[in-house]
């Protein structure tokens, strides 16, 4: 059994998903059912939870690459095992139908099907989420947002839905709402380093380029610092710290002293220029180290995303060039 299908790498590329879906014949060959009658079959069956996760992931990558025949076989096997009324099977079946929808009419039909399921049982959270996802992919973000807000009214501890809602707001450039949603996520999972980094990114993007952006930039810098504190050698956090401190340095030089203690700039006083400079230096040093070591392929440093490392090298090089001049 392939371990890659069981736990696929993050942000899977088209080439990777093609490779994954090409494993379909081997995976589907595995038979878990036993030929013996009921009580004995429990002893001889080779069924594990992993096999079903594998088949589900296989179904998703087959849907992505357009291997419709294998996708159908996966779906049939899952349905045979878990029954048609299982919540997850309902969602997978819906995804299968969505993938084949040719036009808007077929999509509307999918939507109606979800509505019908929810009419019978409105507690099926997975189906409700799926419905929001379909609305988003039909380019109806307003409806998707309303659906998600309703869902979160019922289940306010659903971090996945909060994170999705934040992205939806972000796509509509409603930054303060997006930030609020991510803060809700952090209330539930306060140690999620990736959420701290994402919050820093949104704060950085949302702070306007005129002079009163100080509060957002300072907050963004603090978020990046927290993400680095929670996760050693976090490339995304250091990258953000470098970018935000660089902009903050130029802002701090233009701002007058009296504005620094202005309560408009946040509850906490902004850091001194010296601190920000130190942070900037530390981030630059760390980024250069990560680029050097991961390009050299040192042991323990090979796990970084090559594209991210490349972007970091560009950033560091650009910075050193301006200093040279």
């Amino acid at each position: 059994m392939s371990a890659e299908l069981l736990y696929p790498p993050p942000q899977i590329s088209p080439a990777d998903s093609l490779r994954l879906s090409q494993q379909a014949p081997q995976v589907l060959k595995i038979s878990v059912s036993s030929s013996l009658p009921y009580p004995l079959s429990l002893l001889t069956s080779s069924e594990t939870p992993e096999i079903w996760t594998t088949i589900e992931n296989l179904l998703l990558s087959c849907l992505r690459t357009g291997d419709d025949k294998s996708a159908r076989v996966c779906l049939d096997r899952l349905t045979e095992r878990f029954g048609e009324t299982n919540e997850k099977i309902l969602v997978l079946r819906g995804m299968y139908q969505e993938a084949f929808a040719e036009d808007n009419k077929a999509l509307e039909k999918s939507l109606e099907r979800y509505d019908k399921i929810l009419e019978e049982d409105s507690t099926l959270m997975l189906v409700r989420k799926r419905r929001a996802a379909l609305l988003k992919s039909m380019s109806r973000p307003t409806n998707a947002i309303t659906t998600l807000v309703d869902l979160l009214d019922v289940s306010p501890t659903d971090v996945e839905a909060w994170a999705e809602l934040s992205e939806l707001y972000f796509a509509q450039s409603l930054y303060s709402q997006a930030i609020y949603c991510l803060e809700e996520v952090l209330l539930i999972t306060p140690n999620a380093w990736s959420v701290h980094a994402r919050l820093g990114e949104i704060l950085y993007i949302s702070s306007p380029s005129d002079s009163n952006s100080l509060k957002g930039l300072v907050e963004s810098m603090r978020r990046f610092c927290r993400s680095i504190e929670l996760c050693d050698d976090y490339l995304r956090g250091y990258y953000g710290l470098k970018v935000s401190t660089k902009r903050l340095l130029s802002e701090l030089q233009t701002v007058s002293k009296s504005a620094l203690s202005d309560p408009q700039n946040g509850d906490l006083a902004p850091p001194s220029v010296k601190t920000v400079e130190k942070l900037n230096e530390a981030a630059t040093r760390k980024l250069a180290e990560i680029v050097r070591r991961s390009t050299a392929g040192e042991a323990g440093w090979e796990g970084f995303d090559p594209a991210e490392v490349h972007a970091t090298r560009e950033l560091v090089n650009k910075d050193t060039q301006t200093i040279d001049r």
Partner: protein
Amino acid sequence: MGFTSNLFNLVGLVLLGHAVYSAHEHSSQNPLHLPSSPPSFSPLTTPTSTTSLPTDIVLETLFSVLLISTGIVLGSSSLRPIQWSKWAGQLEREERVKKSVKEIREGTGNPYRILEERPGFVDVRGKRKEFMEWVRKGDDLAAK
């Protein structure tokens, strides 16, 4: 490591079995002299040192237990970091490194990946379109 720990465990178990057997034999050869009077709980009636186990059996038992413990410690998987930041950093770096099924079963994945990927909200059609684009681009490159 696997071979050494297995060897230690095996030798330790054989020695422990031998020690237990010897102790049993020894006690059946030299039965305890029970007092004829009904047992009283004063310290005077405890068996004297003449009936205790010989030193070699005691040493063998201790040695075998030590051997088994060493074998188990050597054979166990490497320890995971207990500091949050170290653990998180290791996770982030190992996310792209291939793992075995056993490691996945032990649950070494990133618990916060769900917040970035949100599997409940996968955009099936978008992913499909993206893949088609990728194939078309590859075809164009091949045609050139």
